[in-house]
């Protein structure tokens, strides 16, 4: 094998990892802050992808420009999901605990959205093929870099910086982090916990819109295809540690690289199998903290 093909694969892996990271970021955030596993997130991304596709094909709206439209829609949608479905379960629980109830409710959301998408757009896979700057690839020596992949990678990094700066530097972000650390103490300090949770969900809505746009221009838009995405993001979150923004980024880059390196030697499906094996091993060896997370002192 030539060196250039290895470098090429490595680069593709990193670019792929950037996209994975954007998908996983929202799951990691919600899991870390609201302590809820957002299993419906993949379906939201796919809905955003359909919307982007629809706007592009129907009205000729450029995918990056359609974000102006999709981001507010998904922000509101996400807030509604939190307000209507997730907030009530903190008040009363039946025989199961909150984590499980929210998991099943969000599974219901995913199924509902899948039904909606199948009803509106049938089960045919679709894709947008689009070129930027007049070329599909940039050549650096003998290494080809896909322009679309590069652009989405940069968008993903911008998302990360946005979330990181928002959580670290703004008052709202600090409030959200305070709620994630200790809900009761944060409430005593005057933080409206419901509002913080809703905002956290709203941020995932924004991320869903961006991710959906990425999926629509890079991969196929397919109503039942979101399960692979949600599984990927769970792998990354388990690998990178729950709630850790940079752990998520690094884990995603690692997973992307591993996948494309295995793709070099084996067939596509084995890269997925290796991903699952890594997931189960990580759960077994470093439960709940992944590779980079800190062990939590308090239980549950």
């Amino acid at each position: 094998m030539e060196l250039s093909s290895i470098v090429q694969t490595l680069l593709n892996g990193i670019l792929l990892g950037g996209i994975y990271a954007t998908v996983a970021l929202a799951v990691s955030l919600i899991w870390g802050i609201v302590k809820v596993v957002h299993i419906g997130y993949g379906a939201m991304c796919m809905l955003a992808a359909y919307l982007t596709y629809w706007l592009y094909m129907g009205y000729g709206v450029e995918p990056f420009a359609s974000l102006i439209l999709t981001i507010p829609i998904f922000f509101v949608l996400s807030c509604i999901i939190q307000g209507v479905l997730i907030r009530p379960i903190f008040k009363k629980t039946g025989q199961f605990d909150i984590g499980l109830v929210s998991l099943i409710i969000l599974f219901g959301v995913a199924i509902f959205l899948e039904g909606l998408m199948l009803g509106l757009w049938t089960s045919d896979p679709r894709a947008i093929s689009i070129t930027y700057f007049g070329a599909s690839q940039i050549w650096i020596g003998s290494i080809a870099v896909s322009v679309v992949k590069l652009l989405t990678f940069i968008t993903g990094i911008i998302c990360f910086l946005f979330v990181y700066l928002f959580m670290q530097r703004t008052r709202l972000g600090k409030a959200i982090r305070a709620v994630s650390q200790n809900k009761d103490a944060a409430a005593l300090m005057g933080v409206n916990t419901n509002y913080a949770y809703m905002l956290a969900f709203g941020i995932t809505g924004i991320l869903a819109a961006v991710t959906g746009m990425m999926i629509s221009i890079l991969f196929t838009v397919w109503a039942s295809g979101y399960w692979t995405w949600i599984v990927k993001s769970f792998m990354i979150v388990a690998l990178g540690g729950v709630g850790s923004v940079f752990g998520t980024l690094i884990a995603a880059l690692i997973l992307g690289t591993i996948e494309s390196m295995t793709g070099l030697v084996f067939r596509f499906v084995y890269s997925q199998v290796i991903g699952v094996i890594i997931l189960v091993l990580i759960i077994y060896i470093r439960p709940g903290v992944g590779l980079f997370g800190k062990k939590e002192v308090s239980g549950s």
Partner: protein
Amino acid sequence: MKISSSLKILGIFAIISVIMPLLMPLGLPVFIIVLLSYIFIYATLSQSWNYIGGYTGYVLFGANMFFGIGAYVTALLLYHYGVSVFVTAFLGAFLAAGFALLIGRPTLRLRGPYFSIATLAVSTTLSLFVMSELWLTMGSRGVPNLWDPIIPRVGREIAYYYIFLTLMMASALVGWKIENSKFGYGLLAIRQNEDTAPVLGIDTTNLKVRAFMLCAFFTALTGAFYSPYMTWISPDSVLSMDITLSPILMALFGGAGTFFGPIIGAFLLESLKRYIIFYLVPGSSAHLLPFGVLLAFVMLYLPNGIISLFRGRGFALVRRKGEANKS
């Protein structure tokens, strides 16, 4: 104690007297027999999901992988070598139980959603694997021409009706046994308070893994009989998300953690599903919309299932164990 056990026996007699007419389906039209067979299939799946999901509170999101394992083991052996399903079903079921042990051992040590996530990941990857390994599974085109050598081709609806009825009864019996055994009390202790369960000498991981294996066994057994019933299987049919979704919803809707709940849930919801996809909106996915809404609704407003509506009215059969502990 005496009264409740005699009420239980009374309840069982009541159930049997309801089911007896169902045991003689010869006079019924074929579509009713097929509908009932489907109800029995989903009742078995729902019941076996209940072993792990209902009693311990660990949500399994990958029932379709066990169903698929059972279906594919049977289908491939039947297609290539003509082995009867009555042999291969148990082979597939034990294989699925072994697979469950392999996944359950590392992931069930942990609390929380890790088990759900791992099972979801494994099941999606398994369906990718089945789609791509053409030499083994024939890919997305599926395995055709599955006729069991023992079961007669004419009147096979009735033969399979009895098979699926037996499976449902067997799984319900196991559910009832679980509910009235030390094993079942252990599982309920895990759901109610997993911190104190080990203090009482319960090996929680071991118990959860055993319940999970039992679940895998019955799910695969159903899948195994499903493939010659369909005579043609494909990843779309036996590894579909519906196989995962419907049993969860049926168990929760009927009443998770009771052996009777999944059966009620399967009867009501499978009828609804068949009605929607055959009469209301032809197509195979229209039921996803109402099912998604129903899932969220049940969890929010009826977390103990419709069976809880009948509780405390002298129907001792459905009373949950350890209920007195709750305020």
